[in-house]
């Protein structure tokens, strides 16, 4: 019989790999809460696995997975009790770090002069549990947009600076996923801790990789044991298999020049016939960052607020200037979204705006698949070239 390893180094080093069981995960969630983190992880909500508050292991979607296809998302029972056995749902870290609605200021007026009221509450500290490689990559994309330039978005920055990332390597991608093409998964990077879940045997356990000092610190009082090399290689095998299982592909480097050169592709007309310009893709996209502002006053007119809300480049109002909207057709709006996401984003921020999570494919009500659209634009482009020569 294998003796239980009861001793372990006091402070585990960054890069260390340890084994943890489900009761220890419960203690980990407790430890996070004790330290003032709001734990956000996968929960069943409105018929989907979304990110929401997690106070205990029992809040996690044990035994559930999702089946995703273009325009289709269905919850399904798993044969096991895996807690993280699903591909990403409609929510991402964007919902918490770059929140959908936030008051940017409140102001009061006396004798015509206004002053800005101090912000009422400190921003929450989040510990994200169960996020995937694509989610973390998307957060890094938003970092470049919102805090990587000359000005910093104070709301994003405050939330982002204090957050802790406990990733779970994705072992069961959805049919809509293409993170391998985008270089963002299925193995997560840039985490504080990363879990690999093994739920297929009698032993329900996790391999935990320590990615930062903060990650090591949070594990200090959690009963973990040094992981075996066999466990480590099993984890690699699971993510390797997940990567190989991916059926969708996109050539991210080719997309940059292809879309830059194809503003006039006939494919834009074809996709515009299907696109409803509903903006769902921009809402579920973990990198889409556009916002609009709404001002209001109370009934006395002496107190005003400004609220910032997610906006979508699919709306007619988005590009409105006096005299009309710049992008009045659905064609021009789909073109703006896709070209920005895959091409001009690289010019602006040095990386693609797409992480291959596939959310825009799943949650598009008519199942428009950007990987197919890029392929169709490539095809039309080659056909046009042939005609020219």
């Amino acid at each position: 019989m294998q003796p239980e390893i009861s001793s372990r180094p006091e402070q585990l080093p960054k890069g260390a790999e340890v084994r943890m069981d489900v009761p220890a995960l419960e203690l980990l969630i407790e430890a996070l809460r004790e330290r003032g983190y709001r734990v956000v992880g996968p929960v069943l909500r409105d018929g989907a696995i979304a990110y929401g508050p997690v106070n205990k292991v029992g809040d996690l979607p044990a035994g559930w997975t999702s089946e995703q296809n273009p325009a289709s998302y269905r919850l399904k029972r798993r044969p096991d009790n895996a807690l993280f056995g699903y591909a990403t749902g409609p929510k991402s870290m964007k919902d918490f770090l770059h929140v959908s609605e936030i008051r940017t200021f409140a102001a009061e007026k006396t004798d015509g002069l206004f002053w800005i009221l101090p912000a009422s509450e400190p921003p929450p500290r989040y510990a994200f549990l169960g996020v995937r490689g694509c989610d973390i990559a998307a957060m890094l994309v938003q970092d470049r947009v919102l805090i990587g330039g000359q000005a910093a978005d104070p709301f994003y920055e405050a939330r982002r600076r204090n957050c802790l990332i406990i990733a779970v390597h994705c072992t069961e991608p959805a049919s809509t996923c293409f993170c391998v093409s985008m270089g963002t998964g299925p193995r997560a990077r840039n985490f504080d801790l990363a879990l690999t879940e093994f739920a297929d045997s009698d032993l329900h356990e996790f391999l935990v990789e320590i990615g930062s000092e903060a990650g090591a610190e949070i594990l200090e009082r959690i009963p973990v044991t040094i992981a075996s090399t066999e466990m480590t290689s099993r984890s690699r095998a699971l993510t390797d298999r997940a990567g190989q299982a991916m059926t969708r592909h996109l050539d991210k480097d080719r997309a940059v020049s292809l879309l830059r050169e194809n503003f006039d592709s006939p494919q834009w007309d074809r996709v515009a016939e299907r696109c409803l310009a509903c903006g769902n893709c921009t809402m579920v996209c973990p990198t889409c960052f556009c916002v609009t502002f709404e001002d209001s006053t109370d009934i006395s007119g002496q107190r005003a607020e400004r609220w910032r809300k997610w906006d979508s480049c699919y709306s007619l109002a988005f590009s409105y200037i006096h005299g009309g909207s710049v992008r009045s057709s659905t064609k021009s709006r789909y073109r703006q979204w896709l070209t920005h996401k895959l091409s001009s984003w690289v010019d602006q921020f040095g990386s693609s705006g797409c992480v291959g999570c596939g959310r825009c494919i799943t949650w598009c009500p008519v199942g428009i698949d950007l990987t197919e659209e890029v392929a169709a634009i490539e095809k039309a482009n080659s056909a046009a070239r042939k005609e020219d020569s």
Partner: protein
Amino acid sequence: MSIAAIPLPDPMCPLPVRISEVVRETHDTYTLTTTAANGSGLPPFLPGQFSMVFEFGVGEVPISISGDAEIPGQLVFTIRSVGAVTAALVGHKPGDYLGVRGSFGTAWPLEAARGQDVLLVAGGIGLAPLRPVISHVARHRSDFGRFLLLYGARTPKDLLFRKQLHAWSALPESQVLVTVDCADSRWRGHVGIVTKLFDFVNLRPERTIAMTCGPEIMMRFVIRALRARKLEAGQIYLSMERNMECGIGFCGHCQMGPLFLCKDGPIFAYLQVERWLEGHHEL
């Protein structure tokens, strides 16, 4: 994962300013001069830059600064009433307060223009963002060659800065030409679009720098006219407009191709925008 803090004041909070003067320019356009309201001073600005101007409880709009950049402590905005916020803004009286964020964006190329003939082509309210250039040229007249202003408005009633137009035409080696799309019975000047005025000036293309601001369609034709008169693309600058809601590249509305017009513009060398301005629409 933690990242380093970037210590910056909240760029999204407006600074209160006090209106010291309101000038009615036309039936729908007013010039508001503002000064700091709380002793904190106002941001300096460069000709061509804009501010986000805040009407308490109504909203915020991007307005080009139309004042003289060498008069410190004030920001001047020439505002045409076209929507809820601008209508509220032009309804103010001296002593009222507004909010202002920034001077944001890029500036007209005054350094590159030194020693050159300066040709300005403006349409409608597009004259306002060019006025700081005129103030600068007037102040430093000997630093520049000839000064040419071609200005088009819809009707005589829509002409901005009427008195100043006369003063500018009286500057040494200056020519100010004005046209209206639609004349009335008392109008004795040019009638037609602003590009018609090119027939009445003799450009020295080898030593001219052109700056234009007006409706996008006008600027496309102005650029064509300039190119036809042998100006190189690199001698042409323009001020672009898109929906702007934040002024610092976060809201996403002002994109044109890879450009954020608020921070990469609004003033561009024509070469920067040629690709997106010519040939494509609805960008």
